[in-house]
């Protein structure tokens, strides 16, 4: 008996040891370990809850929209503001029902998908060029070429003739320009670098576009607040910030020249105007450097991404319908909450494009919306 009990102890200890080893091996094997951990949480949540994840830019608007939608339709929505890239990987892993992203999915992300997805434009945002020049009272005007040269490190003083040429009558100081950019990977950086790649060949070949790039000059700040902090603290600094953040914090920001040659002040109206263009059927269009004559050039859609065929896993028709109905509400009635939160409402062209996309969403081959 005594020997038996020792044996039992030994087997228990050995068993525990092997369990631990196998656990550590399993965790090594799992490639997308983060989404794997979230899957149980998403699947385990209550049956009526719609789950989504992605863009942190969308989060304040979504919180407002979702709480209003819940009041009216008794539909809870669980949105995790984890960042666009993480939202897409969670959608790819099918641990959430919709993803939200500030950039359309790229080729590599598409190839990871098991089934086709659709993009629905959900709101519009803009990136503003904020600067710290206490001596300058007028609003600065910036051309795309100057902007690219500043961020490439080719223009280093504020009284550079190239800047002065666009700002006649403004007395520019001889301060050194300190460039501030985002240090964390972000949709804001993606929009900004996409814009610079479009307007400057040199930027396109030297740096390129992406949510993190190899910045040729400047300081990095974490988040909008990090860049805003650097701009506010450093005399002569210039940085790019989300429109909403700059407006809410009373930061000075420049007028940027658009494709039509007009200097446009970033505002809700000029950002909405940027989307008044021909929108392709898949809505995956970048609004940066827009053709619209009164549109602010560094604007962008933010998209919600869902699977085109909603019958996957153990999804019911009811569940799929509730998701599509929610999205339909968001691009129509939900837009009324945009302006108060400094988001630009969707342009009419964008809403009709979104409607067309939602109509193409199917369940078991049949369209969900009639």
């Amino acid at each position: 008996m005594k020997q038996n009990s020792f044996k039992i102890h030994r087997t228990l200890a050995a068993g525990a040891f092997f369990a631990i080893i196998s656990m550590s091996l399993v965790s090594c094997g799992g490639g997308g370990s983060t989404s794997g951990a979230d899957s149980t949480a998403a699947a385990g949540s209550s049956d009526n809850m719609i789950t989504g994840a992605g863009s942190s830019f969308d989060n304040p608007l979504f919180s407002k929209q979702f709480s209003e939608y819940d009041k009216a339709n008794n539909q809870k929505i669980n949105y995790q503001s984890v960042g666009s890239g993480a939202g897409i990987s969670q959608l790819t892993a099918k641990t959430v029902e919709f993803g939200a992203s500030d950039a359309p999915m790229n080729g590599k992300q598409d190839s990871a998908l098991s089934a086709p997805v659709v993009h629905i434009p959900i709101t519009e945002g803009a990136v503003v060029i904020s600067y710290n020049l206490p001596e300058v009272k007028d609003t600065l005007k910036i051309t795309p070429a100057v902007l690219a040269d500043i961020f490439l490190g080719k223009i280093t003083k504020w009284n550079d003739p190239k800047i002065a040429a666009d700002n006649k009558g403004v007395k520019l100081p001889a301060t050194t320009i300190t460039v501030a950019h985002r240090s964390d990977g972000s949709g804001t950086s993606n929009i900004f670098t996409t814009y610079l790649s479009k307007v400057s060949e040199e930027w396109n070949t030297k740096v390129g576009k992406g949510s993190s790039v190899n910045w040729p000059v400047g300081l990095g700040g974490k988040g909008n607040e990090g860049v805003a902090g650097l701009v506010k603290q450093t005399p002569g600094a210039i940085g790019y910030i989300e429109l909403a953040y700059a407006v809410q914090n009373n930061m000075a920001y420049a007028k940027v020249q658009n494709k039509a040659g007009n200097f446009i002040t970033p505002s809700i109206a000029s950002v909405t105007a940027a989307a008044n263009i021909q929108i392709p059927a898949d809505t995956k269009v970048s609004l940066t450097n827009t053709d619209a004559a009164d549109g602010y050039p560094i604007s962008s859609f933010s998209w919600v991404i869902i699977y085109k065929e909603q019958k996957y896993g153990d999804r019911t028709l009811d569940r799929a319908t509730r998701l599509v109905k929610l999205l339909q509400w968001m691009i129509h009635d939900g837009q009324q909450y945009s302006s108060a939160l400094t988001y630009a409402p969707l342009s009419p062209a964008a809403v009709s494009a979104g409607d067309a996309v939602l109509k193409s969403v199917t369940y078991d081959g049949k369209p969900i919306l009639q």
Partner: protein
Amino acid sequence: MDTSVENGMITRSDSPLRVINSSPEAIAKSKARARRSFRQIRTENIFKRSLMIMGLLMIVLVLGICLTLAWQSRLSISSLGPKYLWSKVWDPVQDIYGAWPFLLGTLLTSFLALIISIPFSISVAIFLGEYHPKGWLPNFLKNAVELIAAVPSVIYGFWGLAVLVPIVRSFESGIGVTPVGVGIFSSSLILAVMIIPYAASLGRSMISLVPSHLKEAAYGLGATRWEVIRSVILPYTKSGLFAGILLSLGRALGETMAVTMVIGNTSLIPKSIFAPGNTMASVIANEFTEADKPVYLSALIELGLVLFLVTVVINLIGKKIIDRFTNE
């Protein structure tokens, strides 16, 4: 059951003969005692085993972390090769990844912080360990130093950004370098403050453990206090002091949040200690969430692996040095 108990007792009791020669009551009594001692042995064994399991768990944990990091970074290891360590460009757009600027940034900030903090931590340790071990002021000082270790690092980051960076900026414009404020120097200052308590508290307990007969002998020979500290206390405690410094270096290497907020986060190689830079930990924290390509993610995890290995190597070197101190 009975036989096994008796076996157990016969082998383990100090007077087995008494059992054979005693009355029934005595047999019952000793059986009870035997049962109790069997239970005691079992408790001992369970305790010993659980200690062993906990210890093994730690080893498994460390190996598991190392293996996970290595496994997850296999993609970047195979596609970038060893030049990952010394190539200077970190360009996620074109999938070019080189860890050198961040490796350099991590080592620069940590060692600079260490150099700044050593005079403070050693002084605090000597003051608290030798001059004033008791009293309200030393107690207050001791708690204050321990509190420094307890403050969350994001608060240091905020404080650094709001208070330290402007001071450093005006200092920089005073000495004639580009006044950016944020950079390697600011991060080292913040780190120095954060790591003082580690070396200070270990040093203090080491100094208070110096046997008083040694000190008294030195005093008896006419040594002054400074001479006692220099030739008795410091030599006696140097391995402990060094261990404390090593501990604070480990903390500095891995610190993320506070450094991220004041280092300036650029992938360019820092040209001077006042230039902005970046550390491995803060690159991981910054770029992990939006790493949208497999190689990119893998390169970031490899950065974690490099940081892990740097910490291990520095610890091993430190252990060697401590061993040499102790053997003398």
